[in-house]
């Protein structure tokens, strides 16, 4: 394990380092060599410094994040969780469930006949009051309407639409169809039978 140049190889030096970690003994020959060879002792020192440096960096890194205050809070959280360990989970009582429970409790105390009679009476009273309120509104709709309704005489049911409006509507439609956004729809439009063609085919 001792190299040609009579120096300890890296694995041997690392074993020495690990022996220091474990608190175990170093091989006597290696120990004797380290005592005599300054170069190997320096290499071991360098290795130990490197490994310790890595550890110190990691410790500093973690300590910067997990401050003593944060450690204390974490301890409290752990103990808090331990206190509730083994206990059944607390079930939150939601308002709907609470209401349902109350309603069930109340319903069991009231006789069903009273409930039905009260509901029927409420219904009759409601219908009666509603009828009384609606009656004047029907008699005077103009007074109730918030703004006057203007009904065009040309658009009454049964009358044909003026030809000029048709032309305007169709030209608007064509313009809309020829727009850039609708070009993708043109193949579908081509597939659709035209009214003109159908009426020509079936006069």
């Amino acid at each position: 394990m001792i190299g040609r140049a009579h120096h300890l190889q890296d694995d041997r030096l690392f074993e020495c380092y690990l022996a220091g970690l474990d608190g175990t003994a170093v091989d006597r020959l290696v120990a004797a060599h380290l005592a005599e060879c300054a170069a190997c002792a320096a290499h071991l020192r360098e290795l130990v410094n490197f490994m310790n440096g890595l550890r110190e960096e990691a410790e500093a890194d973690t300590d910067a994040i997990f401050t003593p205050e944060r450690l204390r809070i974490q301890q409290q959280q752990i103990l808090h969780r331990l206190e509730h360990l083994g206990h059944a989970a607390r079930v939150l009582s939601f308002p709907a469930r609470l209401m349902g429970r109350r309603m069930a409790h109340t319903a069991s105390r009231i006789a069903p006949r009273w409930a039905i009679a009260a509901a029927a009476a409420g219904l009759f009273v409601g219908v009666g009051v509603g009828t009384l309120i609606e009656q004047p509104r029907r008699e005077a709709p103009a007074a109730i309407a918030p703004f006057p309704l203007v009904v065009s005489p040309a658009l009454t049911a049964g009358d044909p639409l003026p030809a000029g409006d048709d032309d305007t509507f169709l030209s608007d439609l064509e313009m809309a169809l020829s727009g850039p956004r609708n070009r993708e729809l043109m193949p579908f439009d081509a597939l659709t039978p035209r009214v003109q063609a159908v009426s020509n085919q079936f006069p």
Partner: protein
Amino acid sequence: MSDPGPVRYPASPSAPAVAAQLPERRRTPGQPSDDTRLAVEIRELVERGHSNEARERFSGLVAAHQRRALRVAYQYLRDSADADEAVQDAFVKVFAHIGSYREAWPFEVWFTRILINGCLDRRKARLRRDRWFVPAEEASGTDEARRAFGGASDLDPEARLLARERRDRIDEAVSRLDGRQRTVFMLCHYGDCTPREVSVVTGLNESTVRVHLFRAARKLRGLLGGKP
């Protein structure tokens, strides 16, 4: 392992300095650690129904392992909120299953295994989430700000920036390690586990753990140019 006879480090002028630089270990090989004994006590308290006392004792374990656990979880998840939740979940799970704890395993090994499994589950869940949704930032802005300014508030801006760059370089180098190498390296260097403990946690042979660790260190030295 526990033989005090052999020399730990040679008695050369430079060797004690090297030994002094090594991190101190809390555990004595072959002896159950204080945490293991405490975990056994907590288990017995829970079995006897003294839950309040068990919780009080458990807070000691939380305090003892919290920082290390957060370090490991954060290195795995790279998100402080995720790491926080993963550590909390691990402690709660440990307490909930303390009845199944056997002292054949050191407590820290048992706990670390639970923690890492939780972290891996979270990573899987995050990957699944990121596959279907727009991936979130790896680390939140708050994390970045704290990393940049929180830990080194006594340094001048240039030093802070350099420190941040150095950490980013290390993160990138560690992320380029092979999966097993990364796990072994993280457990050893961020989780303070010995190769034997890593072997128990990961189920790998101890010599395999050592080989992975050596290769990880060699690769990192190559990637980082010999300087952390």
